[in-house]
């Protein structure tokens, strides 16, 4: 981290960054040579021994030059749209400038769900039909570990130099070889004042126990966000917690579920229910609620006093992607602060691109002080990153959480 004083953002991202995984990768590194000597091709992770070397992703023949196309899978409400909601201005501008058509599909509803969808193809060494998508930090770690994503060719992404220092050295991808962040943001509490009867929802305890919200609360199926917020509410730190803390958080959610407080566990699709008022209050992602509230003032969000989780979603290029170079051009395009500013003005998430603040201020002065896009030191001091989990913890915790969510 050089000898510079870390910025608040850097500090937030670094908290809990030196993790078991980092240690594990080190340990696994020793195993690499041994396995390689055994003649392991390491391309089929499902057959390899536990904790083995990072297998390398297979590249397909790049058809970028002949086939002017990119297939991009992304989350809902995650890119700028024109006022009539019929086009996506920054994408259109990209196509106009490069002649590359972008098939933008909003089919990334939830990390686990998306992983389950593409894993059989990746494990079989097949093309997923996608050239680029945006995965959350911990999922990027898994994709790299299993050799399902290709290293980015930085020669095609000169704008990568604009990456904010805070996002530079992350534990899941040291040196950003495989991934570049698309957006970062907070998990928070979103609510629809029409459905709550004008009431504000300010804490997780209130969300999980207030009888006025009974049966009209949803939580995210994204374990790290839902459990992270509950941990914070219980005075624990998601970047440094024990199994007992985790179990206590699960117990609190279980109790709310048994009381009929929770309607559902959702992916990104909670936005429809929240707008319609079928969901009164929920665990939500900051930018979603913020951008929806522009058209629907009854939607509000709370960054809980107790703290909130911070995450980032990252561009990755999967193995066997047919248009890798095009995808890299696309990433490069979005790493221009002027372009990113247009996206931010719409999505209200934290930009990983340096210079966005100045570019945003040029569009709209007020946006420059928006805490969701440009969080202050104070806002960031309460944002916690969920700590990395060992493979064993990950499967154990995921099981506990999923049994709760579907049991």
């Amino acid at each position, binding site marked *: 981290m050089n000898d510079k004083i870390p910025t608040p953002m850097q500090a937030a991202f670094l908290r809990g960054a030196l993790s078991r995984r980092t240690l594990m990768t080190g340990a696994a590194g020793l195993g690499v040579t041994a396995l390689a000597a055994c003649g392991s091709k390491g391309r089929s*992770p*499902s*057959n*390899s*021994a*536990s904790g083995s070397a990072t297998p390398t992703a297979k590249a397909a023949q790049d058809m970028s030059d002949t086939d002017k196309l990119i297939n991009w899978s992304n989350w809902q409400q995650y890119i700028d749209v024109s006022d009539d909601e019929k086009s996506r201005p920054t994408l259109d501008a990209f196509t106009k400038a490069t002649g590359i058509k972008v098939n933008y599909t909003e089919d990334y509803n939830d990390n*686990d*769900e998306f992983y*389950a*969808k593409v*894993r059989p193809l990746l494990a079989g060494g097949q093309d997923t039909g996608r050239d680029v998508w945006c995965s959350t930090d911990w999922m990027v770690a898994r994709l790299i*570990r*299993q050799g399902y994503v290709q290293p980015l060719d930085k020669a095609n992404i000169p704008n990568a130099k604009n990456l904010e220092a805070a996002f530079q050295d992350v534990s899941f991808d040291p040196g950003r070889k495989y991934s570049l962040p698309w957006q970062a943001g907070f998990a928070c509490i979103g609510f629809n004042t*029409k*459905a709550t009867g004008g009431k504000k929802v300010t804490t997780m305890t209130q969300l999980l126990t207030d009888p006025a919200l*009974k*049966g*009209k609360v949803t939580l995210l*199926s994204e374990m790290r966000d839902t459990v992270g917020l509950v941990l914070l509410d219980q005075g624990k730190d998601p970047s440094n917690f024990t199994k007992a803390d985790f179990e206590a958080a699960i117990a609190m959610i279980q109790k709310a*579920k048994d009381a*009929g407080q*929770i*309607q*559902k*566990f959702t992916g990104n699709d909670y936005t429809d229910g929240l707008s*319609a*008022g*079928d969901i009164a209050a929920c665990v939500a992602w900051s930018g979603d609620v913020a951008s929806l509230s522009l058209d629907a003032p009854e939607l509000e969000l709370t960054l809980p006093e107790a703290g909130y989780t911070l995450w980032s979603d990252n561009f990755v290029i999967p193995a066997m992607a047919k248009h890798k170079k095009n995808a890299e051009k696309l990433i490069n395009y979005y790493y221009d602060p002027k372009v990113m500013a247009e996206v931010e003005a719409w999505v209200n998430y934290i930009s990983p691109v340096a210079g966005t603040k100045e570019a945003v201020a040029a569009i709209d002065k007020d946006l420059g002080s928006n805490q969701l896009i440009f969080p202050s030191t104070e806002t960031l001091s309460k944002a916690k990153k969920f700590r990395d989990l060992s*493979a064993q913890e990950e*499967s154990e915790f*995921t*099981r506990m959480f*999923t*049994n709760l*969510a*579907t*049991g």
Partner: protein
Amino acid sequence: MAEGAAVVGTGAPVRKPVRRGRWVPYALLAPGLLWLVVFFVVPMITLGSQSLQEGNIDEGYVFTGNVSIYADAVQRYWPHLLRSVGYAGTATVLALLLGYPLAYFMAQKAGRWKNILLILVIAPFFTSFLIRTLAWRNILSDDGPVVAFAQSIGFTSLLQAIGLTSNDTLLASKFAVICGLTYNFLPFMILPLYASLERLDPRLVEAAGDLYASPREAFRRVTWPLSLPGVVAGTLLTFIPAAGDFINSRLLGNTETVMIGQVIDSQFLRVLDYPLAAALSFILLTMIVVLVTFYVRKAGTEELV
């Protein structure tokens, strides 16, 4: 079979059966058998072996023949299994109550409207199952007119009192899930009922009347027994898919209405615990086969199984 083959092979009724035509029925069966082997037998065996594996997604799964997973699965998920059977059963009964009069009317009384009515029954199939279920979410939306009306006549309070909903709305409740199931599988009930009621000779009902049977008695002794094959086919076509359904409970239900299909879906696609998901699929399969066999025996139409 040999006789049939002879007829197919020669077309001459008097000639003795000849050997040469023997392969014809097998040849005709071959595509179907191949289909069944590739798309039923092989997946079943794969699923069966998968249920007896152990391991995790990173390290891969190995066959260990661990049967105890079935006991674990039942122990953990018996409420979901029971719930699925309960919801599917209720939906089947509701579909029968709604479908029978409609099918009867279409088959016996509709006259020249028959075809139009038939098209109306099939029309929902022109749009996707998912879209139709999502439409229900809009229809039953908390701020929508349906809920407002149901509240004004006290229907929501009634549902709440009998425990079908948990607050004074309709969405995200047992009620919504059962309605969704009934709605989605209703055509599967109506079509077989229609087919068997259409064949019903109205003169038989007239004859019953001539023999001093009241309309109710005529229905009980003539119409109902003759429509029984349709009833059995319709209830099976409704119950079996409804018991394994995961869309309705996911879109219209809450955390208390999770059906077994949803658990299997999430174990397969979310937790990636393939053995447990495979075991649950087999348990569901066995349960349905047992229930259906019992039911068909009881209904007295053994020839259907």
